[in-house]
C-alpha cells in the first residue's frame, strides 16, 4: 500500500519548498485591516511550516532528522532561499534547520487563561526566510531544479516516504507552462509511491479561500485553475487527516490551497504517536 513507509532517522524523507520571489510578489492581498504583501504571506507560511515541522520532531536530545528540507526561491535568480547561516544551502537536515534560523523574533499570541479568557503570551518565532520580491517569474526553471533535488533524494533513499514539494506562488510564470516540470516531479517514485506536489496560490484576484478542494469551479482565474490541475491528489491517509480538520474530501481532492493556511500539511505526516489532547 503506498504512502505507508515509516518516516524515521534511518528512513528519512524530504520536504522541498519552491517559493515565488518575483516582482509581482510585492503586490498586496487581503482587505480591511489585514493587508499583506504576497511575499510576506509566503515567507510567513514557510517559516510557520518549518516551525511546526521542527516542533513535531523535537525531543530531549535535540531535533530528530526525520526530514531534510530544501527551500528554493525564484525571481531575479533561482537558488536556495534560506537566509542567515543556511544561505546557499540546498538540502538541509531538520536538526540543522532548528539550530540555524536567521534570527529569533518575539511574537505575541493569545492563549486561554484557564478562566475562560485569553492572555497574551510572548513566544519565540524563528525566521529562516525573508520576504523577497524582485525580477521575473522563472517558475519552470525552479520546478525543474526541485525535480533534480527530489530525483537525487529518491535515488539515495529509494524506500522513503515519498518526498513532498510545496510550491508557493501568485501563479504567473514568465518562462512557460509549468505543467511539464510538475509532471516531472510527480513522476518520481520511491518504493512507497510518487512524490507529492502541493501548491499554495496567493492571489489578489479575490474569491473564496479554498483548502484542498476537489474541483476548480469556485476558483477565480486561469492561474488558480492551472495550479489546481497540477497538484497531486491527496493520498487516502491524508484525506483522513483533512477530514479530522473539518475539511470535506472526495476522490478528486487535490493538494491545492487558495489564499488560505497551508500549515496543516505538517499534520498529514506520521512520525509516530501524535500528542493528541483528550477531547
Amino acid at each position: 500500500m503506498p504512502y505507508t513507509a515509516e518516516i524515521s532517522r534511518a528512513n528519512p524523507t524530504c520536504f522541498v519548498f519552491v517559493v515565488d520571489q518575483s516582482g509581482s510578489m510585492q503586490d498586496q492581498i487581503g482587505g480591511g485591516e489585514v493587508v499583506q504583501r504576497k511575499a510576506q504571506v509566503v515567507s510567513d507560511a514557510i517559516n510557520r511550516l518549518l516551525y511546526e515541522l521542527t516542533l513535531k520532531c523535537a525531543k530531549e536530545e535535540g531535533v530528530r532528522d526525520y526530514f531534510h528540507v530544501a527551500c528554493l526561491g525564484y525571481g531575479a535568480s533561482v537558488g536556495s532561499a534560506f537566509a542567515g547561516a543556511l544561505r546557499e544551502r540546498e538540502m538541509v537536515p531538520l536538526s540543522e534547520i532548528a539550530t540555524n534560523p536567521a534570527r529569533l523574533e518575539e511574537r505575541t499570541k493569545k492563549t486561554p487563561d484557564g478562566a475562560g479568557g485569553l492572555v497574551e503570551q510572548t513566544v519565540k518565532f524563528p525566521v529562516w526566510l525573508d520576504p523577497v520580491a524582485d525580477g521575473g517569474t522563472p517558475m519552470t526553471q525552479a520546478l525543474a531544479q526541485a525535480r533534480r533535488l527530489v530525483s537525487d533524494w529518491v535515488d539515495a533513499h529509494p524506500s522513503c516516504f515519498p518526498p513532498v514539494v510545496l510550491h508557493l506562488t501568485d501563479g504567473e510564470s514568465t518562462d512557460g507552462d509549468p505543467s511539464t516540470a510538475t509532471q516531472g516531479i510527480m513522476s518520481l517514485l520511491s518504493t512507497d509511491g510518487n512524490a507529492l506536489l502541493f501548491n499554495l496560490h496567493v492571489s489578489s484576484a479575490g474569491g473564496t479561500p479554498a483548502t484542498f478542494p476537489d474541483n476548480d469551479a469556485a476558483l477565480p482565474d486561469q492561474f488558480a485553475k492551472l495550479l489546481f490541475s497540477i497538484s497531486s491528489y491527496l493520498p487516502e491517509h491524508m484525506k483522513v487527516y483533512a477530514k479530522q480538520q473539518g475539511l470535506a474530501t472526495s476522490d478528486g481532492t487535490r493538494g491545492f490551497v487558495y489564499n488560505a493556511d497551508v500549515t496543516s500539511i505538517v499534520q498529514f505526516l506520521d512520525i509516530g504517536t501524535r500528542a493528541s489532547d483528550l477531547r
Partner: protein
Amino acid sequence: MQVDAVAHWGQKLGCDPREYEDAYSVGASGDTDVWTLSDTSRRLRVAVSDGATESMLSGRWAGVLAKQYTASSRAQMRTSIRRAQDRWPRVLHDYKAAREHADKPIAWYEEPGLDRGAHATLLVAEFRARAESEPGMWTAEAVGDSCLFQVAGDALVCAFPFTEAAQFDTSPALVQTGQRNRRLLDKHCRRAAGSYRDGDTFFLCTDALAAWFLAQAERKAEPWRIWRGFSAAAGAAAFREWTAVERSAGRLKNDDVTLLTVSMA
C-alpha cells in the same frame, strides 16, 4: 498462588536505548520477579505506559505514571494519575535544572513542547488472590492503546481495551501531565475485570506488540505460544531476536516494544 512477572522491552530500530519511551512497573515487595499471592489480602499491581513520539519528556512521564500506580496498594488509576500530575512539576523542574547544570539550556524548539506537557498511554492491572481452590480476580483500566490479553490453556479469553488489529492508529487517547479534567479522563478510560486460575497467562504490552498479537490471533495463529517462550528472564535474547525478525518481515511495526508477562503458576 505463585505469580511470575517478567518484562521484556526494546527501543525502536534505529534508536538508542536511551530513547526508549515506554515504561512498565510491577508492584513488588522485594527485588524478585516472583511473588506469592497466598494471602487473600495481597494484590499484585502492574502497569505499562507508552510515551507519545510527538511529545517532550514522554518517556519520563510514562515512567512516572507506571510507577505511581504500582507504588500504591489501593489507589484507583484515576487517583494515581492525579498524584503523578502533582509530581510532574518537580520532575520538570529537576530536568530543567539538570540541563542548566550541564550548560545545555532549553532551546527555542523545546519550549513549546515543555509548556504543552507530556503525553502517554496507561494500562494498569491488579491481581487479587482468593481462598484456595477459588479463582483469583483481576481488574484492569486503560487510557489509550496499550493492551492486556488473558490466555487460558490455548484460548484467548480476554483482549482489552482493543479487540481488533484494525483499531490501532497514530492518535490513541493519552494521559497528559496537565489535563486534570476528570470528566474527560473518565470518558476515555476503559475498564475490565475477570477471574483467573492456575496456568493462566496475562500479557500486557504497548501498541506495536498488541497490534501484532491481535492480527495473529485473527488468523488463528495462536501468538501466545510464541510469547510464552519469552516468559523466563532468560528469554530476553529470544525476545530481541524475535522482534528483529518480525520487524524485518514487516509484520511488527517499528516502535518501542514492551511486553510484561504475568503467569499464574
